[in-house]
């Protein structure tokens, strides 16, 4: 029986192109790494497997990046620890209360603190972790490696595949962002509200510092909301023709009305729905809601985190009139150049809602949104939120969420299903215009990988090759 190859031999084989060598590395270490990750992620051990998968993915890429000598075992443990730290920083503020002593979070140190001081330190830690979680992934990684691991910029640059100067810049930007977030939190509410009032009066966006503060301060958020409502309420008093002034359109109850005055006309034209104003958040704005979507980098965007380039969040608050109405609908429109992505979690009344059949994700700029038939004893308010994304290469999926292979075909059949095997059971659906990569062919069937990394078989007739 031949002895099993050493780690060094496996790394060398993998770098020579032997894909099975990495399978062996995975088989050798993944159980141990999962155990290690579970220990770190005591608050949420269920994600340990995902963390190790992420670490293995990074390892597989990093090993091929250069030929530097690597002591595989400790290196894999470090990668896993960093991924676990990323996961912790991303989820800690949501996953448990830091004030809860049951989780064994000791902040008092060797000298016991006064209760007020301990509470303040817990609050500060919670806020800092929240800020850290809100940083772009690459900045967070660079900062954690520099601050926690004490790595040099040359080492960080090697990990990230960039230059030492870029690593310095990433760490600098991350530190600056953390300081700005802290400043925004502690900013004087009166000063922020004065800036909001000035911006509102001049019909421009408030300063980035004020918006950062608004993302953290519920009272100032309510103040900003009230300002918008005041303007919408005032619009009702305007004579009819002026209601059609403004940029952008909102379609309610089958009637197209103009931008910010939409609410006023909606009250006249609505079929069971009254629009109370549309808000559009673009790149650089703090996200008004948490987003989980393949369209955003890392698949997640925390509430308050800055919206990345090519992405927008469109929100509309609507009032559903009392009584039995079978078809309540409204249309939301994405900013120019972007396309409809996910429908985000509705807030307010618990009424099922969806895109109308015919609204195809990734294809259209406008989405028709339909509420399920229901009898409402009293008017109910719901805030509907939609994610928009600028397509790249025909896909609205964020680059880091896509497969590495370039798409070769596009789906042309709106009812196409993805099958486990030719003629077998279905495992998913495909949408018109979705880019896919054909991996193999068998008669009238094609093995594909979709832009959302789903793999399966599809009828060849449902595909068209991309030019």
């Amino acid at each position, binding site marked *: 029986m031949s002895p099993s190859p050493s780690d060094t031999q496996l790394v060398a084989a993998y770098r020579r192109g032997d894909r099975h060598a990495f399978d062996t590395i995975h088989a050798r270490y993944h159980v141990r790494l999962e155990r290690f990750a579970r220990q770190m992620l005591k608050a949420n051990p269920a994600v340990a497997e995902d963390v190790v998968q992420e670490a293995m993915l990074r390892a597989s890429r990093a090993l091929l990046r250069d030929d530097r000598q690597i002591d595989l075992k400790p290196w894999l443990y470090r990668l896993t620890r960093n991924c676990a730290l990323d996961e912790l920083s991303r989820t800690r503020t949501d996953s448990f209360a830091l004030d809860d002593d049951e989780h064994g979070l000791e902040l008092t140190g060797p000298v016991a603190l006064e209760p007020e001081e301990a509470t303040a330190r817990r609050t500060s830690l919670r806020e800092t972790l929240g800020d850290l979680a809100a940083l772009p992934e690459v900045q967070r990684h660079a900062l954690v490696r520099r601050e926690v691991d004490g790595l040099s910029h040359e080492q960080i640059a090697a990990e990230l595949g960039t230059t030492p100067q870029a690593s310095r810049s990433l760490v600098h930007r991350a530190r600056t962002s953390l300081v700005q977030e802290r400043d925004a939190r502690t900013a004087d509410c009166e000063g922020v509200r004065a800036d909001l009032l000035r911006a509102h009066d001049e019909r421009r966006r408030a300063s980035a510092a004020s918006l950062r503060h608004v993302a953290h301060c519920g009272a100032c958020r309510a103040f900003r909301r009230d300002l918008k409502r005041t303007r919408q309420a005032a619009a009702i008093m305007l004579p009819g023709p002026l209601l059609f002034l403004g940029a952008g359109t909102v379609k309610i109850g089958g009637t197209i009305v103009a931008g910010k005055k939409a609410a006023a006309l909606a009250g006249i034209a609505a079929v069971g729905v009254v629009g109370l104003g549309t808000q559009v958040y673009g790149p650089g704005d703090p996200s008004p809601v948490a987003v989980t979507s393949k369209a955003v980098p890392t698949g997640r965007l925390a509430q308050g985190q800055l919206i990345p380039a090519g992405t927008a969040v469109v929100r509309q608050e609507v009032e559903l009139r009392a009584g039995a109405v079978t078809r309540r609908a409204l249309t939301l429109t994405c900013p120019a150049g972007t396309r409809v992505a996910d429908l985000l979690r509705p807030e307010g009344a618990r009424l*099922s809602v969806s895109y109308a059949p015919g*609204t195809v994700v990734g294809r259209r700029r406008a989405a028709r949104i339909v509420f399920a038939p229901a009898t409402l004893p009293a008017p109910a308010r719901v805030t509907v939120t939609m994610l928009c994304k600028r397509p790249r290469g025909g896909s609205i999926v964020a680059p880091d969420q896509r497969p590495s292979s370039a798409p070769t075909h596009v789906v042309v059949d709106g009812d196409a299903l*993805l099958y486990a095997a030719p003629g077998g059971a*279905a495992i998913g659906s*495909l949408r018109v215009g979705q880019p896919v990569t054909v991996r193999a062919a068998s008669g009238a069937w094609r093995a594909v990988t979709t832009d959302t990394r789903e793999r399966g078989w599809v009828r060849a007739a449902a595909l068209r090759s991309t030019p």
Partner: protein
Amino acid sequence: MASAADLRRAALAVLLAISMTMAATAPADAARKARICASRTAVLDSPGGFTVGYLFRGDRVRIARRSANRRWVRVTTPTDLRGWIPVRAFCR
């Protein structure tokens, strides 16, 4: 020459045969209705895809098919949208 009654009988036999064939090949879950028991569940355009709707406890959906791994169900929602929801969203 076949009489009108014979033609009617033949046509009925053909229709019966077609309907029996369709019944035999239809998926077991086809057209079945089911109720959502999860507090809230997202409707996806495909498992692992984009969110296209939301359902709440008590909503009734028509089941079209189950996925190969039995973890996902393709449904038609009360808003006539077709999408996928996880099996765990249903009442057991």
